């Protein structure tokens, strides 16, 4: 049991470190470090442009999408090298947030199902951040139950005609392409009538409407499709086999194991170290310490769980459903940590004007972002189902609609 780099890993780390030191946009380092959770914003700069420039620079030097094959814009790195890179990239990695869906889910899906020529055309600009991708799965009628979606795709000659609506599409407003799951046969059971495509988001008939989130920000959108035409050559996988294609996408989500998930703990610990309460420093208060200790062991537990997962990866094992626990634990932890940090400030915890923003604002941003973390990419409940069914081997939920043709499934809980 050790944390040491092998000589090969050490060489890779040294090379990465040197390149980052020479090339990273250091003028933003401090802001990025402080912007830990909630929202990344850069004063006086357009974050999208800064992020794209950094990604392009990485790509030109061969540091983008490390684990992808070289011919598609990657580096052919091992999983462990990818983690080393993340460790060394540190706060600059926060600039990648708008590429996560493209790199983590759309790219791998393209790699598995697109034709060779398409891969060579679309993947390198995705890797380099020149083109941004989004994932058009969720709909008003199909979130947790993705297969409940209703957006129709109908074949007309060599093209498919799309009509319907997606929702919660992160980054659709600045995306160039998207992967799209549609219904191609409503007369069969819901999982059996889906088909996957990729499309140009600038196609006629695509309309993106930003949604204002509970946090006040607008990171996701509604996307409407009116007679949007997609060539059959942009179909991913077989007709009516979209469910299996989407499973590949969702499975790849798990591959994006990071060197650590955000829990809010380091921020809270620092805060308690500096905060004075009526009866002395917060960190010396017994009740505060008990709370801190409980979150400390969750945060360290997650950190070492991911190290165990990385060790398994480096032995060539595939990431399993047990890796679902990071998001499950961290989501509600951030929420609780932020609530507590505000509680410690008393009534002033509610303020967030410029002069108070440093402390209260930071935890408020966490608090207001956390509900989204617990929903996106599978809710807490769905995560627990995954653990119960695929790790512990418990029976699947009863699915009353499993063998019912899609167009016979009830659409409202109360008539």
């Amino acid at each position, binding site marked *: 049991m050790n944390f040491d780099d092998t000589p090969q890993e050490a060489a890779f780390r040294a090379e990465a470190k040197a390149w980052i030191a020479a090339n990273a946009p250091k003028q933003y380092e401090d802001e990025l470090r402080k912007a830990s959770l909630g929202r990344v914003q850069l004063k006086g700069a357009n974050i999208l442009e800064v992020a794209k420039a950094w990604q392009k620079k990485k790509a030109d030097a061969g540091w983008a999408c490390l684990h992808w094959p070289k011919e598609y814009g990657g580096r052919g790195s091992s999983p462990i090298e990818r983690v080393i890179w993340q460790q060394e990239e540190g706060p600059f990695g926060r600039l990648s947030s708008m590429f996560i869906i493209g790199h983590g889910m759309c790219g791998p899906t393209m790699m598995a199902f697109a034709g060779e020529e398409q891969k060579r055309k679309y993947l390198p600009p995705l890797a380099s951040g020149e083109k941004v991708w989004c994932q058009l799965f969720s709909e008003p009628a199909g979130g947790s139950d993705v297969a409940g979606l209703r957006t129709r795709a109908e074949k007309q000659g060599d093209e498919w005609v799309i009509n319907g609506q997606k929702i919660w599409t992160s980054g659709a407003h600045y995306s160039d392409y998207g992967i799209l799951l549609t219904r191609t046969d409503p007369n069969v059971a819901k999982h059996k009538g889906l088909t996957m495509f990729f499309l140009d988001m600038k196609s006629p008939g695509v309309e993106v409407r930003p949604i204002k989130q509970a946090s006040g920000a607008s990171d996701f959108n509604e996307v409407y499709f009116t007679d949007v035409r997609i060539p059959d050559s942009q179909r991913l996988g077989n007709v009516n086999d979209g469910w299996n294609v989407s499973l590949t996408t969702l499975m790849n989500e798990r591959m994006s194991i990071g060197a650590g998930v955000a829990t809010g703990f380091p921020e809270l610990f620092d805060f308690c170290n500096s905060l004075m309460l009526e009866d002395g420093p917060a960190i010396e208060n017994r009740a505060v310490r008990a709370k801190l200790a409980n979150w400390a*062991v*969750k945060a360290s537990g997650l950190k070492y769980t991911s190290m165990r997962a990385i060790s398994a990866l480096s032995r060539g094992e595939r990431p399993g459903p047990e890796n679902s626990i990071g998001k499950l634990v961290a989501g509600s932890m951030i929420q609780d940590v932020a609530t507590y940090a505000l509680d410690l400030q008393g009534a002033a915890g509610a303020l967030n004007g410029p002069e108070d923003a440093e402390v209260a604002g930071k935890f408020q941003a966490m608090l207001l972002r956390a509900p989204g973390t617990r929903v996106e990419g599978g809710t807490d409940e769905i995560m627990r189902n995954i653990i119960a069914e695929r790790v512990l081997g418990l*029976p699947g939920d009863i699915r009353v609609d499993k063998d019912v043709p899609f167009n016979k499934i009830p659409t409202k809980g109360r008539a």
Partner: protein
Amino acid sequence: MNFDFSDEQKQMRDEARKYLAEQCPPKAVREVLDGKVPYDKALWKGLAEMGFLGVAIPEKFGGAGAGHLELCVIAEEMGRALAPVPFSSTVYLAAEAILIAGSDMQKQKWLPKIASGDAIGTLALFEGKGNPSPKAVKVTANGGVLNGVKKPVADGAIADFAVVAARAGSSGRESDISLFIVDLKAGGVAVKSLTNIDLTRGQAEITFKDAKAEPLGAAGEGWSVITQVLDRAAVLMAFEQVGGADRALEMGRDYALDRIAFGRPIGSFQAVKHMLADMYVSATLARSNCYYGAWALSTNAGELPEAAAAARISATQAFQHCAKNNIQVHGGMGFTWEFDCHMYYRRANAVALGLGSLSYWEDALIDRMRKKNAA
């Protein structure tokens, strides 16, 4: 990086698991639970023969000389099986204290006996309510003899010797505390069994009246040794706790698959599934903290104090969480004497207290993190 046990260590785990499944089935645990015997003597001998008691004791002192990672592996299995033997008191506490502070002669005298199962040892630290603290030590050491009362002492009634923390000075500082080895079968020692929540591991009260004591380690260094012993024992005990948590989770899962209600296995009800998923989560977080503790223990890293506290807290929580919800999954059956659930529940709650309770370790963890941050 390789943040996992080696193949050899995993093989050792399989071997220990198999051995304990055969030699320490719930039926054997119940012999002790029902008060028929104070501990499982045959198992104790067997563990010695398997080399498990001396796994971390150097070969020159009669041990297997494997190391602490190997001991962690064994500890997990002892916890899984609820082994009713004085393993933690003898191996994590007494043997570690001697390894840390003992002279060559003391090591020569005691460690081979521990490895061979011929001597049961313990640590006599507590004196009534409260957590580990030099202030709470009232037993006095004067002119080579001890006076006072220790309680509770784990496995005190069956132990042959104890490492005793006693007050040798009156400065009011930590340096008043020294450690001694006391032969519990000699004169001046009175031992009384105490009943406790975990019926499978005994607790005792030990009264010293001019009992002969042999110094262990330098005078005035006692508290620093105690702290080190507690840190090491915390990691080892955390592995026992994770073993127990895992087993409780497994029992719950198995029952949920078998038991039918409303025409379905209860494991198909989401409330039950989610309860089991949460048990898995807490056991997994604890296991990962334990691995970090094992790494720190085996390399004697500067991180050990912090890692030990984290492992201890998280494993205590996980075992308590899994043990209590295992009963819930079992319904009324889980509340009966016949089912094994209560044995895990008892053990979980007893070991949560033995090395200092949660509040002590919570305080220690934050203190240690804070010092590291300031450094």
